[in-house]
């Protein structure tokens, strides 16, 4: 059985003046490993390879990376799903500054997340028990609250590439709609007025890369459409 050809993006700011691709041959012994397991094999031989990882089951969002051109989570992406012609190219998430190898600086991504005020706002007095919410209202949060902040979507979005400082991006907007859609949140108008400028929401051009890459199967484009509808309803 031939070994898997892996081409890995390498950059160490202390020693490399520019990033380069390093070739590895990995013997997977015919197993359909996850990409993360493959990286672990590589790291056993070359401990200098850097990547983030934590839960290894697709819920923490640490190991978002670009695998043969598509963003995804290394820990839940089997080789059989991405390897083409026995070749795998691994790169960091596009559009963000690289710290080292597959590790990117996610500050801009987190800033956009914080900007939409990602927390429930409710001015009414706190009841002695929980706030009630009908199952139907709760259902509206499905497909929204499950985001793991892996940044696969935002870093696959050309609008986010061009304006990461002004366009909230699919992850942040999904989160924003998670609160707009929550029957317990009372800050709808405030949230909407923070979003009506030409960049925050309206830079979305419906390219839908976000939907294509989301490892949790979420649909930020639909959420963005809903925000637009709410803005429209609010303004007319």
């Amino acid at each position, binding site marked *: 059985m031939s070994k898997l050809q892996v081409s890995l993006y390498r950059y160490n700011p202390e020693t490399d003046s520019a990033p380069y691709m390093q070739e590895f041959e990995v013997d997977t012994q015919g197993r359909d490993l996850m990409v993360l397991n493959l990286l672990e094999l590589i790291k056993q031989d070359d401990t200098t390879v850097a990547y983030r990882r934590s839960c290894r089951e697709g819920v923490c969002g640490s190991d978002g990376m670009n695998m043969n051109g598509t963003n995804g989570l290394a820990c839940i992406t089997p080789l059989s799903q991405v390897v083409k012609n026995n070749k795998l190219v691994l790169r960091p998430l596009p559009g963000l500054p690289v710290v080292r190898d597959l590790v990117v600086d996610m500050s801009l991504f987190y800033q956009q997340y914080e900007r939409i005020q990602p927390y429930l706002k409710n001015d009414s007095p706190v009841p002695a028990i929980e706030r009630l919410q009908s199952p139907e209202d709760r259902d509206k949060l499905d497909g929204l609250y499950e985001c793991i902040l892996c940044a696969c979507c935002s870093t696959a979005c050309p609008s986010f590439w061009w304006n990461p400082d002004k366009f909230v991006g699919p992850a942040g907007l999904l989160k924003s709609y998670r609160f707009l859609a929550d029957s317990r949140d009372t800050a709808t108008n405030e949230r909407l007025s923070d979003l009506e400028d030409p960049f925050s929401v309206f830079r979305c051009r419906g390219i839908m890369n976000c939907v294509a890459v989301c490892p949790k199967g979420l649909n930020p484009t639909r959420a963005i459409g809903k925000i637009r509808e709410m803005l*429209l309803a609010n303004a007319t």
Partner: protein
Amino acid sequence: MVTNITSFSRSGLSDWIIQRASAVVMAVYTVFLVGYVLFHPQLDYATWSGLFQQTWMRIFSVLAFVSLAAHAWVGLWTVTTDYIKPTCIRVATQSVIILAIFVFLVWGIQVLWGA
């Protein structure tokens, strides 16, 4: 909230509505013109010119021109803010675009109502 003074309306929502409304006007105008041509197989200059002598047609056409101008501005403004990062080059490009759109608009009105 992101503020940007070169956007006319400074509201993404207005821009968004303008772009969609203007697209509808242009679509209707296009369908009308294509239909008109199809229903007049022996179209000559007199018939064509006659159409544009009608006041309603002139108003319809001006509406289509204004829509085109607005649509072009919103679209090109977006393109320049996406791709041209140095401020001075972007503002210069945007100025040229505004001037061109203005010239085309005035020219169009002149053609319709002039002579």
